[in-house]
Every structure is written in structure tokens, then in C-alpha cells.
């Protein structure tokens, strides 16, 4: 292509939109803090801000620790040994990635709140509130990030390396430690940093377990939220200052993960020809299998079961027995006008976001070898990596007022985004576009370019060749993109809670309201429904016809 064509222009337009609606505002947010040092200084000097920074670091590091301590041994057991039922366990642990963390948080409140938790009925012995509880819940919800990263790396480490250590006189554990562990360490580090990143960006769990307690504890995201609730220009200014601090923390973690990723790439062998021998656990096989089952029970089954029980229990103080169960809450919630309209709104938003992300992902994929496409791809990574709270805050600060473009004297275009669902859509698309571009670009890179060239020689125009040959081959990546984006948006809370227009609930914000203020039983019903949607969505993806290699 010698002249820029329509696709290239589209990619440029997309890059410009990303600058206008995501990267620009984020940069603006930070520079606002930097340009107005007074606000930043005041924020940094206030006791609350420092406490929030420490709380963010403490809970995020705690979550990382939980995820690594549980995740690394689990990954070894699932990937490299003959553990019984390992496929079922792998499914259980990785399914955590699709569950909104605040649903796990709800479950844990119902299980282990010091006053009313099911586990504390026999006496107060476990308290989920506070920093350790937040770290535990965000850590378990980040667990799949460590497990998947470690498993992927382990699958690329040839067993002969370990066997050579055995032949040199190392015990099985020693061989793992000396031969395999150093090779998968970069993957573990990068998985851990992802957990840290998502924990520091978490909003729902810290709010439920930290703020809504007798002794409130704020992390940065919840502090931004309360600043904003306070309202007015000062509230917005303080919120942006806190966002800038959060962004710095995220950037440090991201830089760390980039370094770990680069080291990992150099040291692992390519995928082909790797022989992985599963270690025979011998007489430890069954004890270890039971232990893993127990872990899965505690961190996956227990909180979800608590939510189900709460949704069915007529009264929270009743004993857990079949005769106390009622479907009244279900009727009430699912036929409630507020619930139904919130659900419809969220489904529509998530559906449109999914479609837009797929289409824009295709634009980036088609132009991936040109400068315009690469620019758009790089710009799309920004909002994805930046905490949702920061993305939402950035949009809010720039677009809280109407923006007027005056063109040709009389024609004025007014961009009025504040308190609209369009703003929510913009935030969702900006945040999750990277999923689409990543999937499509990977898919297209794997595609043999001669397939499209053959169509050209058979008389198909470039567009026709794309529709007939390339598009059908991208069905898998596009389905995955749509489903993942849809699921993330349907349950989105962090950004929605900041920018959803007042009086127009979304599923995430409604769930948050019900759980925080009014009605745990109704919240549980809604949570069950959401989990059901997630399970159906995942089943749909795995049942969808796979593209053949």
C-alpha cells in the first residue's frame, strides 16, 4: 500500500479518539496534579492520604503474597504431577478469573463478618474485615493470574532439565528448586505483579471490607470515591491528586512486570519439542489431592455457597436448614423494576462494548503492520493497564463540563458527556479495547498470509478476501474477545460507581448499593444471577466451534 487508504485513516482516527478519550485525560489528570502542586501537596500531607497509600500497599502486597504462596505450589501440582482430579481443580481455580471479586467479597462477609457470619455462629473466631481480610479476598481472586502464568511457563520447561539434576544426585524437591524454579521465576514474578496491579486497582472488595465497617479504613481507590462523593471543585481536585498517586504506584508495578517479561522471554525455550514428564507423587498423591480439594473448597466453593444460602434464607438469623429456605427474595428481586432495568442497561452496554471492541480490534489488526495501527495498539494498552478508578477519574475531570466546538461561525457541536451512559460506554471501550487488539493481532499473526493472497489471485478484491478468508479464521479470537469483554462489563463496578449517571443503575452499582446499604439477601440473589450469567458465558465460549489448525 503506497497511499494511505480508508483503513489507515480509520486507524488514525481510532488513535486520535484514544488520545482524546483515554490517554489524553489520563495524562491531563497527572499533569493537573503536577501543575497545581498546591493540591497535590495538601493531599500528600493529609494524614488520610498517607494512610490510604499504606493501606493500598499493605493490602496489595498481602494479596500478592496470598496468590503466590497458594498459586505456585498449585501450578506445580496441577501441571507437573499426577495429582488426582487435576483437570477439575484447574477448572475450579481458573474460573475465579471470571468471577467479579466483590461477589467473593460478599460471600466472605456473609461467612466471616464478626457479628453475623455463618462461620462465627458457634463463636467469634474469624474476622474478614480489615486489611488481612481484603488481602485474602483480593489474593484469592487474583490466584488464577499466578497459576496460569506459572503453568504456561512450566509447560515450556523440558523435564529432562529436572531429570539431569536427579541424575546428578538431587532429590525430587531439590531438582525442582534447582533446575525448574529458576526458569519459571520470571513468569511467577510477572504473575505476582499482575496480582499486585489488580489488587491496588480494586475498589469493591476494599470498600466492602474496609470502609463499611466500624473502624473505616481507606485505600486509594475508595478515598478517590469518597472525595468525589463530597462533590464540588475541591472534591474533584483532591480526587485527581489521589488518582495521580495511585497511577504512580501502578506505573512502578507495570515497569517491574515489563522487566520480568523481558527476562522470561530470553530464558525459556520455544513451545515445540518440549517433553513434560509428570512427577509421580507416590504415597503423597492422595493426601496432596485432598489438601488441594480443601483449598478449592475454601476459596471457591465456600464463598459462593454462602451467597446462595443468603439468597435463599428467609431471615439472616435463621439456622441454615432446608426449612428456613424460601424463594421469596428471588421473586422479589428478579421481578423488581429497578433490577430488571439495571440488568437490561448493563447487558446492552456490555453487548455494545463487546461489539465495538471487536470491530476496533479488527481495525487495529488489519493495520498492525503500519504505523497508524501500531500507534493505536500501543495507545489501547494504556487504559487497560491503568487502574479503572484512574481511567474514570480522568474522563470525569475532562468531560464533566460540556465541551463546545465552534466550526464555521454558526455551527457549534456540543459534547455533553457528563452523566450519560455514553460516557460509561466510552470508559468501558477505552478500558477493554486492549483485549480486542491483543486477540485479533495474535490471531492475524498466526494466520498464513498466503490464504488471503490466494483469494486475491482468485479474483477477490482486498475487502472481499478479508471477508471470505480472514474473517472466518478469526471467529475464535473474536468470540473470545466478545465474551470476555461482555462478562467484564456486565459486572463492572470500579469505573461504573464513579461515572454511572445518577438514578440509572447498572448491575454492578446496584449490587454494590444493595450490599453496602440495604439488603444483603437481594444482593445475593443478584450475585447468584450474575454468576449464572458468567458460567453460561464461559460455557458458551468453550462449546463454540473451535477453529481448526
Amino acid at each position: 500500500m503506497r497511499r494511505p487508504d480508508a483503513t489507515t485513516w480509520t486507524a488514525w482516527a481510532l488513535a486520535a479518539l484514544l488520545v482524546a478519550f483515554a490517554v489524553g485525560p489520563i495524562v491531563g489528570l497527572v499533569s493537573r496534579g503536577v501543575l497545581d502542586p498546591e493540591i497535590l501537596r495538601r493531599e500528600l500531607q493529609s494524614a488520610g492520604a498517607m494512610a490510604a497509600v499504606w493501606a493500598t500497599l499493605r493490602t496489595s502486597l498481602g494479596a500478592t503474597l496470598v496468590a503466590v504462596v497458594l498459586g505456585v505450589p498449585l501450578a506445580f501440582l496441577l501441571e507437573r504431577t499426577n495429582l488426582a482430579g487435576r483437570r477439575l481443580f484447574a477448572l475450579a481455580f481458573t474460573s475465579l478469573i471470571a468471577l467479579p471479586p466483590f461477589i467473593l467479597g460478599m460471600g466472605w462477609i456473609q461467612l466471616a463478618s464478626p457479628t453475623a457470619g455463618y462461620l462465627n455462629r458457634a463463636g467469634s473466631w474469624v474476622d474478614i474485615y480489615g486489611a488481612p481480610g481484603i488481602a485474602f479476598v483480593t489474593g484469592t481472586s487474583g490466584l488464577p493470574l499466578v497459576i496460569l502464568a506459572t503453568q504456561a511457563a512450566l509447560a515450556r520447561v523440558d523435564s529432562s532439565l529436572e531429570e539431569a539434576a536427579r541424575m546428578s544426585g538431587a532429590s525430587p524437591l531439590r531438582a525442582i528448586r534447582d533446575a525448574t524454579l529458576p526458569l519459571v521465576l520470571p513468569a511467577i514474578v510477572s504473575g505476582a505483579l499482575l496480582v499486585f496491579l489488580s489488587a491496588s486497582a480494586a475498589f469493591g472488595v476494599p470498600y466492602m471490607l474496609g470502609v463499611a465497617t466500624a473502624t473505616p479504613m481507606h485505600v486509594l481507590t475508595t478515598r478517590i470515591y469518597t472525595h468525589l462523593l463530597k462533590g464540588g471543585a475541591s472534591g474533584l481536585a483532591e480526587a485527581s491528586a489521589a488518582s495521580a498517586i495511585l497511577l504512580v504506584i501502578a506505573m512502578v508495578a507495570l515497569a517491574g512486570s515489563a522487566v520480568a517479561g523481558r527476562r522470561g522471554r530470553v530464558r525459556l525455550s520455544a513451545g515445540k519439542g518440549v517433553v513434560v514428564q509428570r512427577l509421580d507423587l507416590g504415597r503423597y498423591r492422595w493426601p496432596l489431592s485432598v489438601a488441594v480439594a480443601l483449598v478449592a473448597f475454601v476459596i471457591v466453593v465456600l464463598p459462593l455457597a454462602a451467597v446462595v444460602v443468603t439468597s435463599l434464607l428467609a431471615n439472616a438469623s435463621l439456622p441454615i436448614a432446608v426449612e428456613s429456605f424460601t424463594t421469596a427474595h428471588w421473586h422479589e428481586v428478579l421481578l423488581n423494576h429497578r433490577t430488571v432495568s439495571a440488568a437490561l442497561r448493563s447487558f446492552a452496554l456490555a453487548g455494545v462494548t463487546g461489539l465495538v471492541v471487536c470491530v476496533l480490534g479488527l481495525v487495529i489488526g488489519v493495520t498492525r503492520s503500519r504505523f497508524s495501527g501500531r500507534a493505536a495498539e500501543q495507545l489501547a494498552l494504556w487504559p487497560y493497564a491503568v487502574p479503572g478508578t484512574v481511567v474514570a477519574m480522568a474522563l470525569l475531570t475532562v468531560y464533566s463540563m460540556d465541551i463546545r466546538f465552534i466550526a464555521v461561525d454558526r455551527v457549534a457541536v456540543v459534547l455533553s458527556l457528563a452523566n450519560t451512559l455514553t460516557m460509561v460506554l466510552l470508559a468501558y471501550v477505552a478500558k477493554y479495547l486492549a483485549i480486542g487488539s491483543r486477540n485479533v493481532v495474535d490471531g492475524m499473526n498466526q494466520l498464513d498470509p498466503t490464504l488471503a493472497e490466494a483469494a486475491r489471485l482468485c479474483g477477490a478484491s482486498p475487502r472481499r478476501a478479508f471477508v471470505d478468508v480472514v474473517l472466518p479464521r478469526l471467529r475464535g479470537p473474536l468470540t473470545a474477545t466478545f465474551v470476555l469483554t461482555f462478562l467484564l462489563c456486565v459486572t463492572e463496578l470500579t469505573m461504573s460507581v464513579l461515572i454511572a449517571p445518577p438514578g440509572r443503575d447498572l448491575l454492578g452499582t446496584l449490587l454494590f448499593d444493595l450490599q453496602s446499604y440495604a439488603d444483603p439477601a437481594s444482593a445475593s440473589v443478584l450475585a447468584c444471577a450474575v454468576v449464572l450469567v458468567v458460567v453460561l458465558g464461559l460455557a458458551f465460549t468453550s462449546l463454540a466451534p473451535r477453529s481448526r489448525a
Partner: protein
Amino acid sequence: MVALLGPSGCGKTTTLRMIAGLNRVDAGTLHIGDRLVDDGRTFVAPEKRALGMVFQSYAIWPHMSVAENVAYPLQRKGLAKGAIETSVLHALDLVRLTTMRDRMPHQLSGGQLQRVALARALVREPEVLLLDEPLSNLDAALREELRAEIAALRSRVRTTMVYVTHDQGEALALANRIAVMNHGVIEQLAAPQTVYDDPATPFVASFVGGANILRGFVDSGHFVSHETRFALPTDMTFETGPGTLVVRAEDLEVGMFGTALPMSARLFLGHATEYRFALGSTSLRATGPHLTLDEPRLTIKRAKLFAPTL
């Protein structure tokens, strides 16, 4: 049929892709028949060139059945359904795949995929059929079989073919004319017999005939290379002075007379035996009947002298 023959990286695939319109020319003009298709400004898109192409990877669309793959060019042409069906059947018949028409590509073997690619390239009766190393992904037995099949096809469909290959056997067996390429330059364009018997350059001789290349000089009926003297055949005349001597392996006779050289290997090939002799840092190749001489000697039966090359 023209074969573009050369080592990998010599530009033969790029040339083919320029004919196809998948690469643009940087300089010069490209005509197909009388039609100018690319001169840097005018550019006819590949789909408007009425060509057929068989790709090295076959590029059979995995989401379409055999019949759908073959029907695709005709659908793009806008033919009626009935006409398409007849032509598809005819094309599949040409490559003996009629029974496979409803199979999906992953159910086919490499050789069958290759024949689908042929059928798809032929179905809309292209002005030129382009073949990019069509046999290189097949095992040896299948390659021979399909080579014969392409030869048969060539006589049935009378269309111009451009065949890219790095296998001199394929080029010699199939082509009417061979263009031997090296570093983006055609070193010789001639009939197979000529290319083999009368190579235009030492490169052509070594690449096509696997000939020995000796650098040295001619001195009173002898060729001196690496301080070794070889008697030149007396029925041919050679100019005295420095030069590059090209001797094919079968023109180097192994026997009891001639130049003595240390033998480094003796490889029994079945129909003949290959002998390797150390000469300086290189080795000389000679083929001939199997002999059990301990110290065989070499005589040059036929040779061609070129101006000295670097």
C-alpha cells in the same frame, strides 16, 4: 513452461510474486501478454490479472470444503451456479479428486491438498499459471508422482506456466525453458538441454549440473589448480592463461591413469559410485562405475573454460 531455478534467497519467489501482483516492481515494467500490469505507476491489482497460483503452503482455506475452495474463483467471476458446478467437477477430474469434493482440507493428505491447490488455480482457465515450489513440502516418493502429474497436466491444459523451484531435477524434467537465477539476476535463460550441456556461467554449471569449479590457469595442455596439474582433453582447445574450469562429475573419469589425488570418500549410490578427492581446501566430485582401486587417478574427459572469476 518456464522454470525459475536458483538457490534460496536468489529472488525467484519475489519475481513470481511480482508477476502475481503481490509485490510491486521498484523499477522497470511488467507485461502479461500485451498488457502492461505494473510499471511503478500503473498497477493492475492481483485479482484483475486473471492468473492462477499454487502456493508453496498450498493456502487451501481450511474453513471451506474441497469443492468450495475450487468454486471460489468462479464465484468471484460471477458465474451461474450450474456453470460453476460443471467447471468445478471438470477441474477436480483433471487432478483426480472428484471423490474428495465434499471433504474438508484437514481430512486430506499433503499430496491431495496440493492437487486441490492445482485445481483451484486452473479452474478459471488463467492466462498464466504460477507455481511457487509446489512440490517442496512433499516427501520424496510423492514428489516424483506429482512431478509426473504436473507434466501430464501441462500437455492437457495448454496454458503458460511459471514454475519456481530450487530443485534442478524438477526444472530439467518439467520446463521448456529454464531461467537460472542468482542474487536477483537471471544468469541464463535457455532450454533445459542447453542449460545442462552449455552453461553460460560457472554458477549455472555448478548449480544445475553439480559441476566441479576449478580456479587456476591453463599451461600447455594442462590446467593447474592448487598446485595440481590436470591434463586437458586433447580434442578440445583451450586458451592459455588464468581461468575457471568447469568439469561435471560424470566427465571426471576415475581410473588407473591421470592425476593422482588423495581420495577422501567413496559413496556407493546404487547405479554408480561417487568419489570425493581432496583438492586444496575443497573437494572434487567424480561419478563412475564402482571400482575397488586403492589409489584411483583422475582424467578430465570434457570441460569448459570460463574467464577467471573471483
